[in-house]
């Protein structure tokens, strides 16, 4: 769970940073897409490394979802007869209790997102390789823009717990930095969300695009 979570975090963060190039205009952004494909060339032929990355990503995702699924089943089975009166939680927060749901939202979003921006496109004129234009076309549709915003907020909530939880799961526990773990998670989640949400907003606001 944690290991795959960390890989996913790594991707999402890098992806968000990369996407910031959007603000530098079409040239840079598409050039960045090109750069991704050119990674480690000539050591490896074109796009090979990118595919490797994608492969890793797919695996991580698969395992993460599988872990999430079996975890959920296990925990359901661990309390077949639930409490008949209201529970009064003290530490468990909204984020920690909704990991499954925020996770699923992100998952579903992702499917849409892949069709939308890297496979076929979803209605709006889509031209493979012209990422900047694609983003512009797609996100300038208000419902889609909103979808992106909602999905990324869900991701943020997921990360708010996940990015803390992983320290416990990995056993990274030390009085010297324990205090910082929560802050890290909060910051990581915040930055990712703000970064990602800024795109649809920018597009809708016309800051990005033509």
């Amino acid at each position, binding site marked *: 769970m944690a290991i795959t979570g960390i890989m996913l975090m790594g991707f999402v963060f890098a992806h968000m940073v990369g996407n910031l190039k959007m603000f530098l205009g079409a040239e840079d952004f598409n050039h960045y897409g090109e750069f991704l494909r050119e990674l480690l060339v000539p050591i490896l032929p074109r796009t090979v490394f990118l595919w490797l990355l994608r492969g890793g990503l797919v695996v991580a995702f698969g395992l993460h979802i599988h872990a999430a699924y079996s*975890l959920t089943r*296990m*925990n359901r*089975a*661990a*309390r*077949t*007869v*639930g*409490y*008949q*009166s*209201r*529970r*009064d*939680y*003290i*530490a*468990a927060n909204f984020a*920690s*209790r909704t*990991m499954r749901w925020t996770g699923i939202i992100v998952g579903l979003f992702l499917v849409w997102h892949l069709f939308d921006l890297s496979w076929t496109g979803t209605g709006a004129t889509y031209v493979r390789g012209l990422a900047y234009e694609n983003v512009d076309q797609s996100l300038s549709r208000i419902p889609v823009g909103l979808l992106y915003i909602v999905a990324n907020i869900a991701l943020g909530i997921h990360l708010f*717990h996940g990015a*803390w*939880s992983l*320290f*416990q*799961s*990995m*056993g*990274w*526990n030390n009085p010297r930095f*324990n205090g910082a773990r929560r802050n890290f998670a909060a910051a990581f989640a915040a930055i990712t969300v703000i970064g990602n949400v800024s795109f649809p907003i920018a597009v809708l606001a016309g800051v990005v695009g033509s």
Partner: protein
Amino acid sequence: MNELNLTLKIWRQAGPDAPGSFDTIPAPGINDEMSFLEMLDVVNERLVNDGKEAVVFDHDCREGICGTCSLMIDGQAHGPQKGTATCQLHMRKFADGQEITIEPFRATAFPVVKDLMVDRSAFDRIVESGGYITAETGGASDANLTPIPKPVADAAMDAAACIGCGACVAACPNSAANLFTAAKVSHLNLLPQGQAERFSRVEAMVDTMEDFFGSCTNHGECQEACPKEISIDFIAMMNKDYLKSKFKNRKMLSRS
């Protein structure tokens, strides 16, 4: 001393397989100096006097040390007072006229025996699987042969303070027993005497734990419910040793 007039909603269940339901029992004239269990004693005494069957609940030492008492009180394991077992909870924490809901600990591994009494023997299974140091009677060397730094002994003691009450499981949204297991594992894994079996111990205990209980997703609710305020830092310690065990125990095998 003040008098409280309370209404209790108590879970009654005739037996393990019988269906259960809440029974509303008025509890007038409760002295607020009483402990929560003394309040239940009074209620039971009245039930018996009315020819009704007394409410079954587990308890023994009434000093917060034996871990026999349990109870979900208004949705919290061991009730509202932090770091306090039900038997040490006093009625002055409740207000006159209050309705108090009392339910048994719930987890598949803690089947209800009757009313508020549950069977927590799954904890014994976890300890039997490795929660000990193999040191058969008679062979021990002088106790001062191995000095143990005070901070280490203290940390081990912090973990060893667990009273095995099961509130961590009851409070955990996942019914995970990680806090209990981590407390047992850490107590022994921290001590020099526990090193020889360190990794086989953690692997065996965690695997047994997972046969019975849910899995920890770090809600931290257990720590809040724990009458001994055992820290979830121990869960992290256990996870670390468990990950290591996956390699170290294989290494050991290759040596034999």
